[in-house]
């Protein structure tokens, strides 16, 4: 998906390269990939059909099981409340499909506001985390100063601290700082991510020092070197870290749940999880809210699928 869009936009945008060679190269690369996949299939599953049939069966069953809850939620969100809670389960709604649940949810609830809050909080957390972690990682990787070693050991040791155990003192601290029940109070405590510093330091360690020395000989300051030599070389890790931080901030529940009180300040996981409508449980509406809440990150995922998978794979660790 991602490749097809870049293939369509790249030649139109640059316009300088002859289109033919680009397309040829892509076709060749695709053919090569196909051959490699075929080779791997033969190596791992054997040359016969039996292994393949078995593998496809298992993967299809697993995928069906994994898709089923989502599919059922989507279907239910397009039913009327009466059909959703009909006692003998019905796949096809008697009253037909309807988007009423979506209309009700969007008209009545704070969902658009919660999504907006989540966008603000996650963006703020991502920007601050990436900036401070990249600067710190560069200092740990390249700068020489007293105390560097034990400060880095401290950063590694901080990996062991589960953020969840800090909620009690942090909550007290937020009241003292007058940040409780504010978006800033939701965001700021999330920006300390020692793992990101370590991941980026490992990346900077692998950039050849010579590249920076050339710039330094030309009289560039340390900050200049960092911004014009190191950062441009680090686009891949910066993307990976940004995506990782954004997703974890977006999905964070416990801290935003503790620190927010008013519905206008809640993020989407907190709002959806704690504010129920006043008429008791209405499953069609709930599924509709859930689908609206699920949509933003799923769209982000579709757009950046390759980066996200690579980012998680190379630098990815640290659960929810």
């Amino acid at each position, binding site marked *: 998906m991602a490749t097809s869009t870049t293939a369509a936009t790249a030649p139109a945008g640059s316009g300088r390269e002859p289109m033919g060679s680009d397309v040829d190269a892509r076709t060749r690369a695709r053919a090569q990939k196909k051959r490699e996949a075929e080779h791997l299939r033969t190596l791992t599953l054997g040359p016969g059909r039996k292994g393949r049939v078995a593998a496809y069966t298992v993967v299809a069953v697993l995928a069906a099981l994994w898709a089923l809850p989502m599919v059922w939620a989507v279907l239910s969100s397009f039913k009327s409340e009466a059909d959703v809670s009909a006692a003998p389960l019905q796949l096809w709604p008697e009253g037909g499909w309807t988007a009423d649940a979506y209309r009700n949810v969007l008209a009545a609830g704070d969902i658009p506001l919660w999504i907006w809050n989540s966008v603000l909080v996650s963006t703020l957390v991502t920007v601050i985390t990436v900036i401070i972690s990249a600067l710190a990682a560069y200092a740990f990787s390249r700068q020489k100063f007293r105390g560097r070693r034990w400060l880095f050991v401290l950063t590694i040791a901080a990996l062991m601290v589960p953020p969840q155990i800090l909620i009690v*003192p942090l909550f007290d601290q937020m009241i003292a700082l007058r940040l409780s029940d504010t978006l800033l109070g939701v965001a700021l405590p999330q920006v300390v991510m020692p793992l990101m510093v370590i991941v980026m330091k490992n990346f900077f360690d692998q950039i050849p020092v010579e590249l920076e020395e050339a710039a330094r000989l030309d009289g560039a300051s340390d900050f200049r070197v960092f911004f014009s030599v190191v950062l441009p070389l680090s686009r891949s890790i910066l993307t990976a870290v940004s995506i990782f931080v954004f997703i974890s901030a977006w*999905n964070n529940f416990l801290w935003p749940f503790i620190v927010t009180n008013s519905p206008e300040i809640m993020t989407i996981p907190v709002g959806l999880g704690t504010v129920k409508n006043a008429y008791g449980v209405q499953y069609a509406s709930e599924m509709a809210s859930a689908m609206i809440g699920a949509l933003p990150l799923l769209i982000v995922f579709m757009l950046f699928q390759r980066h996200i998978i690579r980012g998680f794979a190379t630098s990815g*660790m640290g659960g929810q």
Partner: protein
Amino acid sequence: MTTTTNSPASTPRPPAAAGTSLAPRRRPGKQPAPSRTGYWFLAPYLFFFAVFLVWPIIYGLWMSLTNRSLVNDESSFAGFANYSEALTDPQMWSSLGNTLFFTVISSVPLILVSFAMAYLVYTGLKGQWLWRLTFFAPFLLPVSVVTAIWAFLFTNDFGLINGLLDRFGISQVGWLSDEQVAMWSIALVTLWWTVGFNFLLYLSALQNIPDHLYEAAQLDGAGTWRRLFSITLPMMKSTTGLIVLLQALASLKVFDQIFLLTAGGPNGATRSILQYIYDAGFTGYRLGYASATSYIFFALIVLVSLAQMWFAKRKDS
């Protein structure tokens, strides 16, 4: 090559190992001259690190020694009273027991299933993006979306699962209301929700196995299963070690999905240790006591991490 880069960047390494790779005492190549610029680079990070990590740790430790309350500003020194109360409270132990039970019943399937998924996708079956998307997508859902979907699936009379059981003439199960079953249901939800993360870690590790190992094995006449057990699984040892650690730490920290699905019920059967802390502090207003329990839990996490380091070290030597 510096001494710090002794492993390829693409294989994720446990945090513990990152610690041992530090200490580039004498690096080959030139070093930048010592300067104070480093502090300027570090300052913003250190500021947040100090305010939102180091200070709360110290402040929390102090709080745990007082009877600080959420509703009343007065607090007095209580010594270790909070700790001894927590350690003698059967509810604390049952929450801890629930947490450990959940860690075991969630981690084992999360590791086995994620490996099976990654291996199947790795073998180069067609439709890669579809399999990846299906297995990984639930990981991107906010916890409240996950729990809303599953609470609906688990509903007694018109939920999908009991509805299907009805069709096959099997009696309904109280997925979230039966004390014996509820924790298993939550483990199932957790498996569905988070397996994508381990799946990606395994998938990237599998892609680092050189093809020629399989080719050599094929020449030696090793069959499909033989290749899986003699090449793939041994090559996955360090990745599995990492995944076991990350999974255990993640499962010990379980709170969100339980809180939203059962709120710790029925009858405390699914209450986790983090919920015990939450209940003590934010519904019982006892911040000092909640802090003390936090530190008991922290000690458990440190023990698990140290045990992993010790195992990793022993394997190396």
